[in-house]
Each structure stands twice: as structure tokens, then as C-alpha cells.
């Protein structure tokens, strides 16, 4: 059956994508996940991968032409298959989202064992599998009945609302329907953005299609699969601030930028991770794997969401090197040319909300990592130093860790070490 290749929605404001370059031609054989076309939007340059094995046909837009979000760019046809007739939207298709459709069924939780099954569960199981067999029930060309929330979620998850069956009153598509569809897509196809460190990282540009969906899925996955808890401590960052000020001015000319608090923090955390490899670990099946390398990630806000690029092998880097590596990554983020490799394989994440006036918070672990450090603002406060009240630069740290891998005390020791290095940064030497 012809599989349509659609223009994905990459951000809430995206309305269309402009084809910049076709990498294949009509009749070319393609394999699933092969990059076939490059396009650009108001925000980003991106690519579309073949959703299935087959032959390219029905290319609908040439380079320079624009295609509306969810519009058809081309089809992947089976050997000898004809192009579908007009009004392809009306075709009952099983694909529900921009990410590639399932080829082989991924390991998926199926219906619970039949013993003492509560009545609700089979229903739930049916609901979960519903998207795979969903028929188009919404009127073609007519107004699709969907709640505002469902429309917003569908846009964020890159779900084509026209393909959903509404379970709300009068067949209205509600949030639950979108979630069900997005869940089905996620279970069927791995999220395209970060991949576990162990996985071989394929080079190439990253399609950030449905970034919101990816974030939503990963955050839910994180919270639903890990035993997360957060430790909070306040540290005296006076010397840390002084050191950063000194370093920033000393290296500014040579580096062309000022070393940031985050750079310095990344160095400190890397050091602490080397000393506490249990915090630089991940759970692989039933095994705890202490990662050899410290691939330290930094949460970076982007217009439509959040990315966490990481610097590989930070344990081998001096501060200046590390700072330069982060600078390059952030340049890629703003330039829209991040490499998938930059986003995958992280072992630990730092997220800093200090600039937004936040002190303590409960960051959510970026799976498959086992911990994340939340950094609060630095603020002058009265503190007791040697029995005297003094004005000190104070900072709050929030460490979320996965209790399956680590207990409170070892996690606390790790945080204590970070605190120590912030309070006495000369120990880094």
C-alpha cells in the first residue's frame, strides 16, 4: 500500500516547509529511515526520512516549493504499485504520526494476564491498540470536531488529527485520543532524538519533528519508569563567582567569549562524576552500567522546546576545552544544525534555571541517565561565616536521582562533593 510522506510539524508556529533539495528521484528505491528530502522552515533546516521500504513516487513538490504541514510530499510505493487516486487524505491509513510507521512490532506491553482481570483493563488495552486500526471517521473536507486541547496536543506531537477517531461527545476528538495515537506511535517507533549511549550513533542532521511530543514522551517515560527523588542543598558560591569572573576576563581575548558559570559547573560536575561513577550510570536491563565516559549534557531552551546537547568525554577536558565545546554546541543549537550525535549518548545533565530567578526545583531525569543537577540562581544573602553574619553569594542545587540505582546517602555524597568544589573551587586544581 502506498505510504504517504508528509511534511512534519516541527514547531507550533510552523505552517509550511519549503523543499530545499531532493536526495532521491521518482522511481528510486529507498529503505526505511533513509533521508530522502531536505526542507527548511522559518526556524530550522530539516530532513524527511522514508517512512518505509519501497520506491519513491508521486513527488508533489520540487525544490523551492512549499508544502503545508501534513501535506503530502511524495509516496513510498511497493514494487509495481500505482499511485493512489486523488484525495489521499481520505485513504484509511494506519499511520498516525510523522515519525516512521511501524514495520516490525516493537516489544509492547500487551493485555495483562487473564487472571483476575479487572473489567477496566481489557478496555484499556483495546484503547491502546485502537490507533493501529483507526478508521477515518471525520468528515473529509468538513470541519473536524476536536477540542482545542486535542488540536494543540496533536500539533505538538505531530499527530494528524484527521486520522483520529473521536471518543468524546458527538465523536469529538479529545486529548485522550491524541495521547492514545501518540503513544501508539511512540511504542511502535523509537523516538528520533536522543538515543541511549550504548546505541551506535548514526551521523547526520537531526529531524526535530514533533519535538514537543518527544519531550512529552520522554519526560513521561522518565517519571513513569524511574524512582526519582530530589535532594536540595544551598551552597556558598562566593569563591565560585570570583573565580568565574577572573577566568572569564583572563580567557576572553584568547577564546573570543567569556567562560560561563555553566562551563565552570560542568567542569566541577564532571570531576565529581569521575569520582562518583555510580552517578554516571544507567540501567541496562537488570544491570547497572557505570559509563566509562562522562558525556555531560546541558539543557538548552529553544523556541519550541528544549534540547540537551552533550559534550563527549568531558572527563578528558580542561575547563577551557570544555567551555569551547559547549560554545560550539550552543552555536549549533541556535544555528539549527545540531548533529544527532550531539543529542545522544549523554550520561549526565545539568539544567540551569538560575537566570530565571529559580532557586530549588525538581528536574526530571533525561533517560537513560540516572541523575540530573538543577542549578538555581546565585543571590547575595546574609550567611554565617565563622560565627559572623556576612553577605555571601548563595546558590541552590537540586539533584534528582534514580533511587533504583542509587540510595540517598551516596547521592548526597555526590552532591556534597559538588558543593565542596563550588565552595572551594581551587580544589579543582
Amino acid at each position: 500500500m502506498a505510504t504517504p510522506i508528509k511534511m512534519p510539524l516541527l514547531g507550533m508556529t510552523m505552517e509550511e516547509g519549503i523543499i530545499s533539495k531532493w536526495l532521491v528521484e521518482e522511481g528510486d528505491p529507498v529503505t526505511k529511515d533513509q533521508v530522502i528530502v531536505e526542507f527548511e522552515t522559518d526556524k530550522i533546516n530539516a530532513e524527511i526520512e522514508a517512512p518505509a521500504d519501497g520506491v519513491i513516487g508521486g513527488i508533489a513538490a520540487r525544490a523551492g516549493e512549499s508544502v503545508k504541514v501534513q501535506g503530502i510530499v511524495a509516496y513510498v510505493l511497493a514494487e509495481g504499485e500505482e499511485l493512489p487516486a486523488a484525495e489521499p487524505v481520505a485513504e484509511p491509513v494506519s499511520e498516525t504520526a510523522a515519525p516512521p510507521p511501524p514495520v516490525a512490532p516493537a516489544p509492547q506491553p500487551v493485555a495483562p494476564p487473564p487472571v483476575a482481570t479487572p473489567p477496566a483493563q481489557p478496555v484499556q488495552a483495546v484503547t491502546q491498540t485502537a490507533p493501529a486500526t483507526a478508521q477515518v471517521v471525520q468528515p473529509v473536507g468538513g470541519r473536524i470536531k476536536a477540542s482545542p486541547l486535542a488540536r494543540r496536543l496533536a500539533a505538538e506531537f505531530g499527530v494528524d488529527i484527521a486520522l483520529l477517531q473521536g471518543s468524546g461527545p458527538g465523536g469529538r476528538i479529545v486529548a485522550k485520543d491524541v495521547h492514545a495515537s501518540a503513544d501508539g506511535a511512540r511504542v511502535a517507533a523509537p523516538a528520533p532524538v536522543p538515543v541511549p549511549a550504548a546505541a551506535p550513533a548514526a551521523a547526520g542532521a537531526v529531524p526535530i519533528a514533533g519535538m514537543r511530543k518527544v519531550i512529552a514522551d520522554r519526560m513521561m517515560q522518565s517519571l513513569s519508569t524511574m524512582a526519582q527523588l530530589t535532594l536540595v542543598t544551598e551552597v556558598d558560591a562566593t569563591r565560585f563567582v570570583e573565580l568565574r569572573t577572573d577566568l572569564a576576563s583572563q580567557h576572553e581575548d584568547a577564546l573570543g567569549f567569556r567562560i560561563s558559570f555553566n562551563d565552570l559547573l560542568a567542569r566541577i560536575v564532571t570531576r565529581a562524576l569521575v569520582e562518583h561513577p555510580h552517578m554516571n550510570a544507567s540501567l541496562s536491563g537488570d544491570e547497572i552500567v557505570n559509563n566509562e565516559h562522562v558525556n555531560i549534557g546541558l539543557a538548552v531552551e529553544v523556541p519550541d522546546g528544549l534540547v540537551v546537547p552533550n559534550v563527549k568525554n568531558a572527563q578528558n577536558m580542561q575547563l577551557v576545552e570544555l567551555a569551547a565545546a559547549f560554545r560550539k554546541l550552543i552555536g549549533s543549537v541556535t544555528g539549527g544544525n545540531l548533529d544527532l550525535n550531539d543529542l545522544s549518548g549523554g550520561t549526565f545533565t545539568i539544567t540551569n534555571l538560575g537566570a530565571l530567578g529559580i532557586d530549588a526545583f525538581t528536574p526530571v531525569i533525561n533517560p537513560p541517565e540516572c541523575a540530573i543537577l538543577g542549578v538555581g540562581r546565585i543571590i547575595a544573602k546574609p550567611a554565617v561565616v565563622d560565627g559572623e553574619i556576612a553577605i555571601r553569594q548563595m546558590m541552590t542545587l537540586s539533584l534528582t536521582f534514580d533511587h533504583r540505582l542509587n540510595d540517598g546517602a551516596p547521592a548526597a555524597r555526590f552532591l556534597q562533593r559538588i558543593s565542596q568544589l563550588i565552595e572551594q573551587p581551587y580544589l579543582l586544581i
Partner: protein
Amino acid sequence: MTTTTAVAAVSQEAPQERLIFFNQALREAIDEEMQRDPAVFVIGEEVGIWGGAYKVTEGLLEKYGESRIIDTPISEALIAGAAVGASITGLRPIAEFMYSDFMGIAMDQIVNQAAKNRYMFGGKATLPIVYRASTGAGIGNAAQHTQSLEAWFTHIPGLKVVAPSTPYDAKGLLKSAIRDNNVVVFLEHKALYASRGNVPEGDYVVPLGVSDVKREGTHATIVTYARQVTFALEAAEQLAQEGVEVEVIDLRTLYPMDISKAVASVQKTNRALVVHEAVQFGGFGGEIASQIQQQAFDYLDAPVERLGALHSPVPFSEPLEFGSFPSVDRIVDAVRDLIVGV
């Protein structure tokens, strides 16, 4: 000395519950404000000897005398207008209408005089008036003693409108209303007068224009005020038995209206039910619903639903009266409809 300190410390940790009636709470507010400010006085029908039709001002005549607790003839326009004149010249009248239905007789003074005086004359006078009135159905008072007319007043620029649901709020809001330098229409649901709640002794205020989360929940939000808050809370309790957690937002003040808590709640629950006892068509709930959909549109998973009275005067006959305005059961049903499929 030590003992006193210890007692004080204990009471600070666990303040003693003081359950009083809604009308007592209002009385305390009036009493305390009359003590605090000699410019405050009460004027209305049967506020003195009778002690107010619902006993809100009971005992105040004995305490403050006829010069500050003024019984008027049955002359609602006079009550409203005298408050205008007295306020312009420096007093702070609390004018009571026995039933908000009777405010119909005083509407010129309230709407054309009190509400517009300051603006129309270029900001010369301040009119710190509180127009108190009993409202609402449910006790067989028939069509001319039971209406919920808040929308009349919320529609008039120059009026603030308050509709408390608990004794605590009633006292704190009435004190704020008395201290406010504007015309405040203070609507007291008559079925609440006999409700009891914890009210601290002495001075505190609940600011006008701040809504209140009366119960937290995740599945749906009920936005309401006045007596329907108690119904909504009962409905939420019933729904909780079914595993449905309803958040109940009490607006408390209708103008200025604080919609922020309702919006924040809807962003969480994605579903809103607006409830009031007043006739649904053209009711104040339309304003609430409109603001919710404007400010939380992308969070709505269902239309903002409204539940108000049927389109009729309040009928006398008991089953008809209770059938005409939202009940606990009807709220429960409306929430169930709202969350269908969730």
C-alpha cells in the same frame, strides 16, 4: 507569666476553632467596622428593632443607638439614595435591602446615581457605600423574594459585586467592602445565613477581587460562587467516591473578577463547569465562561459548560423550586457529562 506565654504559643500553633453562623460573621464585620470608624452606619428596613430580616444586625441598635442603626420606612429608593447623599458628604453607609428583589425599586438610585456619581462629575466625590441584600432561592419564598440578580449589578460600571460562600469569607469580604471607597453590592444568599464556619475573632480582611480554591482536583474545574460553592463541594465529595477529582473555585468577588485561579485550574484539568443559581441565560456565568475560553482555549478538552437556573421565575411549589436551580445531583451529572470518555 510563663503560663500565659505557653498558652499563647499553643494557640498560635493550633488556633482554636470558633464556629459561628454566617449572619453572625456579617454582624461581627459590621460591629467591628462601626467601632473602628465612626463614619460607618447602617440604614435599612427592620435593621434596628427587628435586628434585620435575617438577624444580621441584631443587637446593634442597643449598642450604637438609633443615630447609627437607622430603621427606615419601606422606601428602597430612599435607602439607596440616602446612602448616596450620606457618602458624598463623608459617611460610610451600609445600606441593607431585605431582599435583593426589592433593589428593583431602588435601581435608579443604585445604577444612575450611586454607580455613576463619581465618574460623571469628574471624580469629585467618593461613595464608600455597601449595599447589602439577601438573595437566592430554596426556602419557599416564591418569585419575588428569591431571585439571584447579580448580573444586573456586574453589568454596571461603577459597582463592585461580592457574593461570599462561607462565614469566614463573609466577614473578611464585608470588612473589605466597608473599607472600600467604592459602591459595593454585597449579596448574601439567604440559605447560607444559618450555615456555620470557622471565623477568627477580631480583625482580618479578605480582599475584594481575589478568588479562592475551595477544593483541589485534577479532572474537572467547577467555577462558582455564593451558595453554589457548598453544592459544588458536596458534588465534588460525591464524585471523589467515583474517583473523579473536581477542583472548586470560589470567585467570591464577581467584580472585580479574579479569573486567574479558574484559568490555572482549567489548564490543569482541561474541563470547566460554571455554576450559579441565577437564571443561566444571560447570567454572569457567561462572562466567566467567556474569560476561561479566552485565556485557556488551548487547554480545553471540552466546551466550557454552564449550569444555572432554568428560564423561569422561581416557582413556589417545592419540587418546582428545587427543580429550577442547580442542585448537588445536577452538578454531579454535569461533571459526569463533562468528563465523558476521560
